[in-house]
């Protein structure tokens, strides 16, 4: 297992360097055991493609998204202003993140507060690497495998990114199958709007089970997604339906890293 190269902004600054892009890891990517694997997979790809990137490391803090969606605008703006101060001090121009919630907040809600960056979700970033010839995908591992893509709300409807994730799956030579509710009609996994951090309200079904059942109707081998929270919800859904052996849930970054044997 080769060592990951993960320079921090502080280190680069000390040696007088500036990265081309900042990788915003996010709280889930930093602390959630499953999401950390996504983070590592993405870094492996960045390392392989020789991208000059950095992370904030211990200087990164929650974007404030769950606080804002729960209704605590005060805490959100405190977080945002703090992060913007750090990002602007480091003169960050370009950010990539593996979390659609961070992506949405950084991209859409920070500019009014003084944080103007070019922000990309990792699916868009990876697609550009492929387009620029900096990354090639070996099709072998997933050739002909049936993969369905669950659109994260904060990537899809919230920001109209539907194609980049699908192009990546097609590059794997996999068979992309679509759920009935996909793209702009995609059904939420149930985690958004700070639902991730509380019990659900009274109802007759869990949203993640409803969504997982829809995915399972297609009999896929893999459910792909591009969000650490969707990852949790879909993985739990698969467990609830006792399908963990037959169906795996992967992030796009993991699929590409694995295809390239990273």
């Amino acid at each position, binding site marked *: *297992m080769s060592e990951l190269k*993960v320079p*921090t902004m502080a280190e680069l600054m000390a040696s007088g360097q500036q990265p081309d892009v900042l990788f915003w890891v996010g*709280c889930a*990517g*930093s*602390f*959630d055991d499953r999401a950390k694997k996504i983070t*590592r997979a993405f870094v492996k790809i960045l390392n392989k493609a020789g991208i000059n990137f950095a*992370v904030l*490391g*211990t200087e*990164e*803090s*929650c974007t*404030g998204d*769950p*606080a804002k*969606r*729960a*209704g*605590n*605008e*005060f*805490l959100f*703006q*405190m*977080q945002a202003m703090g992060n913007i*101060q750090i990002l602007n001090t480091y003169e960050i121009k370009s950010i990539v993140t593996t979390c659609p919630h961070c992506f*949405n907040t950084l*991209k*859409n*809600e920070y500019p*009014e*507060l003084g944080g103007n960056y070019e922000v990309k979700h990792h699916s868009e970033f990876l697609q550009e690497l492929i387009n620029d010839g900096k990354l090639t995908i070996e099709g072998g591992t997933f050739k002909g495998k049936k993969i369905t893509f669950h659109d994260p*709300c904060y990537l899809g*409807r*919230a*920001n*109209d990114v539907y194609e980049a994730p699908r192009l990546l799956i097609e590059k794997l030579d996999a068979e992309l199958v679509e759920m009935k509710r996909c793209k702009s*009609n*995609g*059904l*939420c996994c*149930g*985690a*958004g*709007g700070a639902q*991730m*951090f*509380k*019990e*659900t*309200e009274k*109802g*007759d079904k*869990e*949203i993640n089970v*409803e*969504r997982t059942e829809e995915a399972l109707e297609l009999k896929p081998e893999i459910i792909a997604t591009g969000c650490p929270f969707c990852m949790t919800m879909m993985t739990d859904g698969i467990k609830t339906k006792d399908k963990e052996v037959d169906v795996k849930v992967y992030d796009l970054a993991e699929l590409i890293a694995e295809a390239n044997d990273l």
Partner: protein
Amino acid sequence: MNISIIAFIVLLIVSLGLFAKNVRTIIRNINLGKALDRNDNKGERFSLMAKVAFGQSKMQARPVVGVLHFIVYAGFIIINLEVLEIVLDGLLGTHRLFAPLGSLYTFLISSFEILALLVLIACVIFLIRRNVLRIKRFFNLEMDGWPRTDANLILITEVLLMSAFILMNAVDAQLQNIGNSHYTNVGDFPISNLLVGMFSNASENSLVMMERGLWWFHIIGIFAFLNYLPYSKHFHILLAFPNVFYSKLTAKGQLTNMEAVKKEVELMFDPNADPYAAAPEPVGEPERFGAKDVTDLTWKQLMDAYTCTECGRCTDVCPANITGKALSPRKILMDTRDRLVEVGKGIDKNGKDFNDGKSLLRDYITEEELLACTSCNACTEACPVNNDPLSVIVDLRRFLIMEESKAPAEWTGMLTNIENNGAPWQFAQADRLKWKDEN
């Protein structure tokens, strides 16, 4: 002056006057909302309005209903050109004033008849969907009572108006056939022509009575319908256009950054601010964080509420509603409208400082509903008139948390974690890079 002309003038003035008064009340109520600037990007707004309101692009997501609705919409607008002639005939005591247009006239009325028949068929299908097939989304709790009656009344009225129009032409044709001099020969119209036979045995006198009766029924029906609009979800036929024009143009995922909060946070981050300075004298009422009642919402959110057609597409795609939670985005906007109407009536009766001790939050919308939202934007995507129920939900949540400090215990924990260690979970910020060395 002819007595029927006088009757018509009185009817016209009364119905237009009453309609104007009710529309003014609605505009006044919408303006009870907070200021919001939506006058930017006019070009983009016009093209959005052309596409979504005139072109009904979002209705076509469900193609069968989309086409039927388009027929009713286009039919209704085009057939209303005929109303111009009817009104002028009423004012001048003439009959078929535009008949001298000759074959063009025959062509126009023939097209109106075909459209009228299509509208009639579409409305009957809509009635069947609502009352026989009982489509699920028309039977959510918030649809009980008036909302369902309202929808049926609209459809029945349209069926009656279209029937009167066609029957009137049929009787008229029979009067032409028997050579009544008042009834100008205008040729055959395709639909009414099929019905002329029904009247072949009627006397000239009773035919004239029937024709006049249908004519008055039709025009009184139109005036009555006009005045029904302000009390009905059918008001969307007018408000859909400005409502789409003033849509939110930014990314769906973007929530507003509250200005009042921004001022305070900026002060806290300002290294030059004097920490011991006395708080500035508050100017006017202290601003409320978030929304408790309709007057805390923006005028656009209130316009959304009046524009809502109660079609329920939002609720139909809401993940919370699909899985049996109490939340229905349609109910959020219907409640907003009903509360606004209540506040408006209170102001009419008791003046501007009216306070009935009630509020949108709790008296109409419960915390349970608000807490069920995943902010996924399925509702805003589905809405054919670009309403934004999510923004109302978020503003009510803001009031709950920032003014009342009311949050589920787990949220309080999550918020405390963000405050203390910069993550929604209880992990130290110093550990943020540990993933690097794990496997």
